[in-house]
């Protein structure tokens, strides 16, 4: 055993064998469901045995040929991206303001960020319906309503990630330094704030995208069949007389791959900075 590994294991207080077993168990726990979904999407029939009875690409070609499924997938991706953009546009300036300019509004922003978790999405959906029905009835049933609904329930993920990144980078101090350098607020945000919180934006953005992509209650109540997203299509596929379970496995696997690739890309791009969700993570940089 090399000295390097010995010191690494001492730090974790676990012998290398224990580490290996733990890591293996975790990997199996995380990968098994994904693997099962992949197998199911490739299975002809899967009944009595531990592995499918036979394999076929039929469900993949069926699924990818199904214009309704492809359209739902594209809608969900587009919606997710739009939600991320809306949330970044609102949350980053708000978090900056609450952290640097006026710490007194932090209580408000923190409170707002807790609401989506305190209330069931169904309740939120009906509340939106009630409110919009009174103030802007022409929005009812449009994708815009869903866009802003998702932006409202998913923003806390971005807020926490961005706020953590701002704390870790000591944005308040950097912002003051930029002011003494003669920079105006917009220049400060562009040259000093944004470049130092990209990891927070990336992490939070992925969580926001995933939340929107998998959200069912708001989609069902606010737009329903008028704007079919992947979760709506999935429920429909499950309820159909001849349940399209294999196609469901196809779309579930594709969704997983999409999110995985985005996350991996974000981690790769930010590896120089590390994902610094927690204050103090900066101390690890450059070592």
């Amino acid at each position, binding site marked *: 055993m090399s000295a390097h590994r010995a010191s690494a294991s001492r730090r974790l207080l676990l012998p290398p064998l224990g580490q290996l077993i733990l890591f293996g168990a975790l990997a199996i726990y995380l990968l098994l469901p994904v693997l099962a979904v992949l197998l199911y999407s490739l299975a002809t029939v899967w009944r009595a045995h531990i592995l499918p009875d036979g394999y076929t690409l039929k469900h993949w070609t069926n699924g990818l040929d199904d214009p309704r499924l492809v359209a739902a997938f594209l809608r969900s991706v587009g919606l997710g991206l739009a939600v991320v953009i809306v949330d970044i546009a609102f949350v980053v300036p708000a978090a900056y303001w609450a952290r640097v300019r006026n710490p007194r509004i932090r209580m408000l922003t923190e409170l707002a960020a807790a609401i989506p978790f305190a209330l069931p999405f169904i309740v939120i959906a009906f509340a939106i319906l009630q409110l919009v029905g009174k103030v802007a009835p022409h929005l009812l049933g449009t994708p815009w309503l869903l866009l802003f609904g998702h932006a409202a329930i998913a923003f806390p993920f971005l807020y926490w990630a961005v706020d953590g990144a701002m704390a870790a*980078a*000591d944005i308040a*101090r*950097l912002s*003051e*330094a*930029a*002011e*003494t*350098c*003669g*920079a*105006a607020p917009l*220049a400060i945000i562009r*040259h*000093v704030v944004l*470049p*130092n919180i990209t990891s927070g934006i990336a992490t939070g953005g992925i969580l926001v995208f995933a939340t929107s992509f998998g959200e069912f209650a708001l989609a069902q109540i606010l737009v329903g069949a008028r704007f079919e997203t992947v979760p709506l299509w999935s429920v429909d596929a499950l309820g159909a007389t001849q349940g399209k379970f294999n196609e469901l496995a196809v779309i579930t696997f594709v969704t997983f791959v999409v999110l995985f690739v985005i996350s991996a890309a974000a981690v790769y791009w930010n590896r120089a900075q590390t994902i610094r969700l927690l204050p103090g993570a900066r101390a690890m*940089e*450059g070592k």
Partner: protein
Amino acid sequence: MSGVVLRNVSKRFGAVQALDGVSLEVAPGELVALLGPSGCGKTTLLRSVAGLERPEQGQILVGDRDVTLAPTRERPIGMVFQSYALFPNMTVRENIAFPLMVRKRPRAQIERRVAELIELVHLHEQADRYPHQISGGQQQRAALARALAPDPEVLLLDEPLSALDALVRARLRDEIRRIQQAVKTTAIYVTHDQAEAMAIADRVAVMNQGRVEQLAPPIEIYEAPSTRFSAAFVGSRNALELPVQDGQVRLGSAFSVAAPAGSRAVLAFFRPEDVELRLEPGGHPARVEAKTFHGSVTRLHLTTEADGRTARLYTDLPSRQALSLETGSDVWIRVDPATVRVFPLEK
């Protein structure tokens, strides 16, 4: 080159009066150190000049211009922060160029000025590194160069050396002074370290509880503290509580000075180097209680009886002379009354 004038500046944080009607004039090209314990208001004063704090009262002028209400970015200042606050996403060169970039100076001019500053603070080799790739002392110099980049009329330094170890600190202190004089800028330097303030400043402002207690050249602050707080805070001094008898304050036959009018007891300060020590009778008897070795000098802790009370004081002796003195030895002391400062006790 402009000076800075503060007139009756006050600032309150909740129940704390951080600045209590401070007036201060810094002459053009002068370096004034704001010295005081933490919480004395020195950093608030500096941040008020920078515009990072808004005083509730008073007036701040840079040169002839009233900047009291001007936003930070419009003030002709450069600031060095305690933690340097270099932008981690920019190299040293980009950090120094930043104040010029946001002022939209022509590119060629920026490059020339940045090269000049890199030369001034000796950072050629580190110019294209990121802040986390260079040492604390180098970060400090980069921060200084960034603050000086736009040729500010006033340079503000907020405990710029407190995060460095002692050796680097002394070297950089002299370096900051050299640079400040080379570029001939007015400077305000906040520190809680009296040796640092004494070494770097033209004048020192001793601050306490939101007020300037004394503003004077270092030697005057050291030799003639004008308030009890200055005397206690600046320089290591003997401080003895003594009664007033017949208008005089005495420590046995060691010294006798006139007491402030109307006082019944005083706090008497005198420096250890002003204690004259004899090994033969002459002066007031005392006893060596303990010795601490400080290299070239040895500090002797003495006890003495005066008017039926025990007093403790100390003095420094060249270490070679102190060799012969054992703990418990009898000595005799005398203090030049001209070096004793007395302040009435508020009792």
